[in-house]
């Protein structure tokens, strides 16, 4: 398994991304809320955050699926490995953009509070 990550690890990151986004834009913690409910609440509260979150979730899913594909390729070619490296960059860049935006929201709200 790539990075010894499990499907559960993957799902945990996706869930945590939603929860962190919700917290940052001021949505009260609701541990039992489904992903669908969280998405709807986030979109209502801040559609920019919602858009960035979903860009991250999409790139994370693409990276994860490619990782699984390459697990089955014995051994992956140099080109396949470099593609995965590129996907790591994309995944992390959008994560950084999301976190920057959420940090900005937190800072803005703490100043205006």
């Amino acid at each position: 398994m790539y990075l010894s990550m499990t499907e559960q690890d993957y799902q945990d990151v996706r869930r945590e991304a939603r929860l962190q986004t919700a917290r940052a834009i001021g949505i009260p913690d609701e541990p039992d809320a489904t992903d669908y409910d969280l998405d709807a609440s986030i979109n209502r509260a801040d559609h920019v955050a919602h858009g960035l979150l979903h860009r991250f979730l999409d790139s994370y899913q693409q990276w994860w699926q490619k990782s699984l594909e390459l697990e089955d390729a014995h051994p992956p070619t140099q080109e396949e490995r470099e593609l995965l490296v590129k996907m790591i960059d994309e995944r992390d860049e959008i994560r950084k953009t999301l976190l920057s935006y959420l940090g900005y929201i937190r800072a803005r709200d703490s100043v205006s509070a």
Partner: protein
Amino acid sequence: MSIIRVFHAGYASEIQAFLDGAVGIAESQSTVNWLGRGVYFWESDHRCAEKWSIRNVREMILECHLETELLIDLLIDDQRSQAFWKLAEKQAAAIQSSSHKPNEKSKEYFCLDGELINRLRPDLEKQYAGIRMAFCLDEPILPDGHLFPRQQIQICLWNCQVIRNPRKYIGSSFRGL
């Protein structure tokens, strides 16, 4: 106390054993390593570890914390680092006249650097857990300049008992924010 977040890419069998309580992690024995034999970590940038693990077929990344006070920290100009440079200068002449392969920066082969530190290590490891250093790779943007496109900080650890908060690295995790 300065705590740094570091990443080590390796075989799952070794890292998982360490997470399960084994005393240490197998040291890299490569003769081209710039800091000699030891367990290598990248500081802060997990992407270095992820990319290296893909290119070198490793299955797992260990994420943990280290205290820089336990290391020879070559990013800091203190008595410890000054003593290191004095020892290194003394040893340099002997290394250069030895039969070891030369350094080849373009290939990132640092056989002489590594061998020098290997020779100093028996004395150094009595007091310190490892060594921390910055590396500037590729060619600078301007001739003789310092604008290197690839910069990274690495730690070569000799004593894994100083590792704090070890855990399996999860790509792009949001935990701990």
